[in-house]
């Protein structure tokens, strides 16, 4: 469903540019209008926790800056010129050409232009990401699928215990860098070899080349990335585990690790030993927070409302219900999940815990979110976990507010993670820090 949107929390398919930037030493080349790349960098990276430009993002992104000439006469010649320049000027291992609305509307044959370079041995692929085609969750998948289809070769043999992980979106998830590191550490804790693919020390092009050799893929996500795993299954016969809840805190993380261990046929004693140690750590600190909760609970918010994508809405709901005993209010899901995943998501919220369920609204329009919440009656101040757009709304409904999703302009985010055991503790610290900060 497409509607007009106030206070956007996601952008367009060309936002896949930021997934390219997140691959070490990969260079995006944007074949579009002069403003696209910078606007997406601005919305997804800078004014979203002030994530930086990275190695080849921000002002370094090569682009055709298409103007009237390219609209009227086509932009293929100009694209060739910019690719030629990029191959000489930019020091990279993989080039990903992404199209914007202009190129896709006028019908440039970008695929053919790019394939000519590939035939000459240049590591270059093309993703058709004209902004009108969808959101950047889909854009992220399009980038991965382009690399898989156009660049990867079947592996001579499978590497046992090697797993590729498809989870949170680089940059769109303000905490992606920390979250992916956390996921890697958790799975390594089970004894797996983890191909995390995006972010610091993820291995760049060499890691991507190893994708076909993996024993299996994990899609740790409500829906994004499932299409990538399906493609890998079709092309390389790699099986995949789809675990739809972002694991935050001990209950969910242990459940995830058991699923992963089982799927990888790991010895359950090995898995349990690791889980036991991690849970001990988590509950040690929950124990330390007990005085705070027992003494201060009278005025702490009992009800929470998530306004974020399905990763966080679901992950945080499960955490707050199962770990801290909070009551879910209405949950907003802002990432436009495809039709086929909607029932599954609604069902997840209907069964958050025994006798605990939450109503779900799928919308990415800040106007509709505000209207819905203003019409509700809150007996006590609710906790609003959302974006920087939601600060005024939280105040209007008398609630507390924490920004954890795009756009975040009231926090600086570096390597913080909310995933896993330690991630759950960080979330507790941040939520109650925000509440205490208002006293």
């Amino acid at each position, binding site marked *: 469903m*497409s*509607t*007009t*949107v*106030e*206070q*956007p929390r996601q*952008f*367009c*398919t060309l*936002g896949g540019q930021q997934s390219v930037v997140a691959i070490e030493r990969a*260079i995006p080349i*944007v074949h579009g209008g*002069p*403003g*696209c790349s*910078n*606007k*997406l*960098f*601005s*919305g*997804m990276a*800078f*004014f979203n926790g002030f994530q*930086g430009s990275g*190695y080849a993002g921000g*002002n*370094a*992104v*090569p*682009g055709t*800056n*298409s103007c*009237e000439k*390219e*609209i009227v006469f086509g932009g293929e010649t100009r694209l060739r010129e*910019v690719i*030629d*320049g990029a191959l*000489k*000027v*930019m*020091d990279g291992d993989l080039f990903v050409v992404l199209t*914007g*609305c*202009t190129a896709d*509307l*006028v019908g440039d044959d970008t695929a053919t232009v790019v394939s000519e370079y590939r035939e000459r041995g240049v590591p270059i692929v093309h993703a058709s990401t004209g*902004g*009108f*085609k969808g*959101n950047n969750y889909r854009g992220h998948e399009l980038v991965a699928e382009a690399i898989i289809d156009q660049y990867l070769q079947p592996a001579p043999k499978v590497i046992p215990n090697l797993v590729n992980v498809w989870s949170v979106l680089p940059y769109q998830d303000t905490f992606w860098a920390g979250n992916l590191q956390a996921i890697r550490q958790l799975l390594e804790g089970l004894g797996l070899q983890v191909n995390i693919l995006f972010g610091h020390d993820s291995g760049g092009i060499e890691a991507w080349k190893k994708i076909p050799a993996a024993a299996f893929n994990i899609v740790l996500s409500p829906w994004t990335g499932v299409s990538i795993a399906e493609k890998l299954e079709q092309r390389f016969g790699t099986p995949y585990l789809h675990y739809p809840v972002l694991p935050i805190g001990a209950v969910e993380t242990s459940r995830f690790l058991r699923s992963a261990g089982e799927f990888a046929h790991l010895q359950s004693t090995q898995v349990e030993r690791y889980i036991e140690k991690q849970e001990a750590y988590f509950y040690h600190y929950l124990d330390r927070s007990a005085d705070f909760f027992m003494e201060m609970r009278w005025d702490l918010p009992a009800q929470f409302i998530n306004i974020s994508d399905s990763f966080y809405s679901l992950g945080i709901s499960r955490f707050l219900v199962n770990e801290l005993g909070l009551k879910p209010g209405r949950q907003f899901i802002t990432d436009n999940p495809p039709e086929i995943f909607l029932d599954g998501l609604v069902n997840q919220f209907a069964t958050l815990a025994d006798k605990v369920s939450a109503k779900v609204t799928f919308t990415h329009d800040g*106007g509709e979110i505000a209207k819905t919440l203003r019409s509700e009656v809150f007996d006590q101040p609710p906790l609003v976990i959302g974006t*920087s*757009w939601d600060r*005024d709304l939280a105040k209007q409904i008398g609630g507390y507010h924490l920004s954890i999703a*795009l*756009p975040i*302009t009231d926090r600086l985010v570096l390597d913080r993670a909310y995933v896993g055991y330690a991630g759950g503790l960080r979330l507790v610290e941040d939520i109650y820090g925000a509440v205490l900060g208002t006293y």
Partner: protein
Amino acid sequence: MTTEIQVTPKSVVRQEPGVTIRERRLGSITGYSGTPDELVKISLAGQLVERERSFTQAGTCSSFCATLQLSLIQDAVVINHAPAGCSGDFPMFNLYNRYGQGKRKLDQTSARLITTNLNEHDTIFGATGKLLEAIHKAYSTYHPRAIFVTASCTSGIIGEDLESTLDEAEEELGIPIASVSCEGFRSQVWATGWDAAYSAILRKIVRPAKIRRPESINIITFIGEDYFSELLRPLGLVPDLIVPFTKIEQLETVSEAGATAQMCSTLGTYFAAGLEKQYGVPEIKSPPPYGLTGTDMWLRELAHITGKDDIVEQFIAAERNAIEPELEKLKKRFAGVKAFVAAGPSHGHSSMEILQDLGMELVGSCMFHHDAKLDHGDPAGDTLRAATTGSGRMTYSVCNKQSFELVNLLRRLKPDLVIVRHPSLAVSVAKLGIPACFVDDEHLGLGYRGLIRYGKKIADWFRNPAIERNLSRHSALPYTRWWLEQQPFSMLGGEV
């Protein structure tokens, strides 16, 4: 500087929607490498031609500039008729809005921005229905005094009929609803977006003057603090900072002002010339009041237009006197410091004046575009010439924030300090280990006292460039060794 009101070219303000792009209207270019003297000369002679780059890095588009001005009007709503990605800059405008409101002690509220979120279906069947839906949503949520609808590449290419849709809505709702022709593909000079925004304001908001308020001076600005009062109030004049953080009512009456000035001649050239041509509000054509000589000349022209000739010289002398001791100290501090400016014209030219007055040596500059002339057409308003009297043979380039060129150039020039005036460029400079000062408040260096403020700020930053040193040791730039060995402007085509 002549103080007579110049006759402006007839083509400046068009009443129909849309604005002629700068390439055609002002002979603006985005590629040049040479010296200020030469650029001034060929611009004046009408011989300036664009040199296109074979390789380019992503730029910025008009829609960003247009929306920056319009989204900060406090009782308007901006609707971007575009796919959702074009709203990537909404969070930025929201932060600017809240940050500026805080500085001005206004209630902090979120910026009022809506995207029509065009999708594939809309590109085939059109989306004026969604546009109307957005207008109704804006109206019922905010009861705005005006609505601005910014166009996009997509709305332009699929041929959306904005005008008749907006006319219809305007009639129904009874508030001005203006289209803003800022399709990204129309111009390589993103400053065209300012013109598009001001054109919408001139067409739909500004009303003929009922009274005259000769003491009120329109100042076309970005979001900086009001340092203009320091220069105007002693002369009995009152600055009216427009367009950010105004209300529609305030913009309706800018036609009543005694004069229009601007903090940057390239920002408000279209608006200032339009106000003069349509409403007889004289434009201060001297370069903006930065640096000693620049401020002298600007004040004299302002005083002449507003009938303050009798008191201006005394004011100038007193102000110059007041800053003298501190300026001398700063000049000693900055003696021998080699500086470089990377900014948009003409504010970049103003920065060049400031740095030279502070005693630094300018080793080069790079501006994001160059206007061969301004809308008022008076060569005496040439900010580049004013800023480079005596330094007209330095390295000067026009480069629409192509960081590959900037990095290459700076590695050769090795300045001690770089002044930057555009988001996300400072980081490339800092990674070279060069202290980079991003000037956030463009008014800080204004006038005489601004020289001291600016000098102290830079001295503070410059004292301990630890972060730049760390970055240069531990960060990699994405350029090949081959490129760094080429001439910085070797990707510029054509011959000068």
